[in-house]
């Protein structure tokens, strides 16, 4: 749920640039429908494209509904959305590798890149000297890249 919530949130915000309250409506609707279909959607491979298409459709519905009240050309280009979804799929693969890297690297990288926290904040929360955070991030990125490359090589046909 946590991982997919980021994915759906990114599609609503980055892909369709919905205002927060509109994005929240779509977000809740996506998960309401997802829970109804949960028994049919067992693997990540099945869930992700299903969620992407559902979120995309609901975002378009929302934009069309909003345009009825306030006409605009806010509906994004289909190709732009396709490109963004492809990039988000890559991001989700990196995210899965991050989950495998484990803590403290997972938490350090998540706080720095995803939550945009400063070295000082990360150091305070994780009880680490702020001066060591940059080098830890660098080492953790290296570790994540190795994990990511290992996953990719493992999934490549020989």
């Amino acid at each position: 749920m946590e991982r997919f919530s980021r994915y759906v949130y990114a599609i609503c915000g980055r892909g369709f640039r919905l205002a927060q309250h509109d994005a929240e409506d779509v977000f809740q609707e996506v998960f309401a429908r997802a829970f109804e279909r949960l028994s049919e959607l067992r693997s990540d491979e099945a869930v992700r494209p299903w969620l992407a298409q559902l979120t995309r459709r609901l975002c378009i519905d929302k934009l069309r509904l909003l345009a009825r009240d306030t006409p605009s050309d806010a509906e994004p280009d289909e190709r732009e959305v396709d490109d963004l979804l492809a990039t988000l799929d890559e991001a989700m693969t990196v995210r899965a590798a991050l989950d495998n890297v484990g803590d403290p690297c997972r938490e350090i990288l998540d706080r720095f890149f995803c939550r945009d926290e400063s070295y000082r904040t990360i150091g305070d929360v994780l009880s680490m000297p702020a001066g060591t955070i940059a080098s830890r991030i660098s080492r953790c990125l290296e570790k994540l890249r190795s994990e990511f490359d290992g996953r990719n090589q493992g999934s490549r046909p020989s």
Partner: protein
Amino acid sequence: MSEMNGFDEERIGRLLRLLPPAPEGWVRAAQELPAARAALDELVVRAEQDATFRLQLQADLERAVAAAGYEPSPFIVSRLRQLLRTD
């Protein structure tokens, strides 16, 4: 920075930035959806069987839901509104 498969560390960082966490309240509300759906089903059955309750819902939906012992969450309220409109 080292590079392999076109995924150097900078690119990995950029990809991670694309997935910030959704607001906690949204995630919590979504996690509560299965329970909310069960509550909604109970409220719908009651509204179908109890004309007085149905009138109370039409008069003041949030208050009627709360008086029936359920949390009038945005999900329950919006779904009930939809159902009352379509009847």
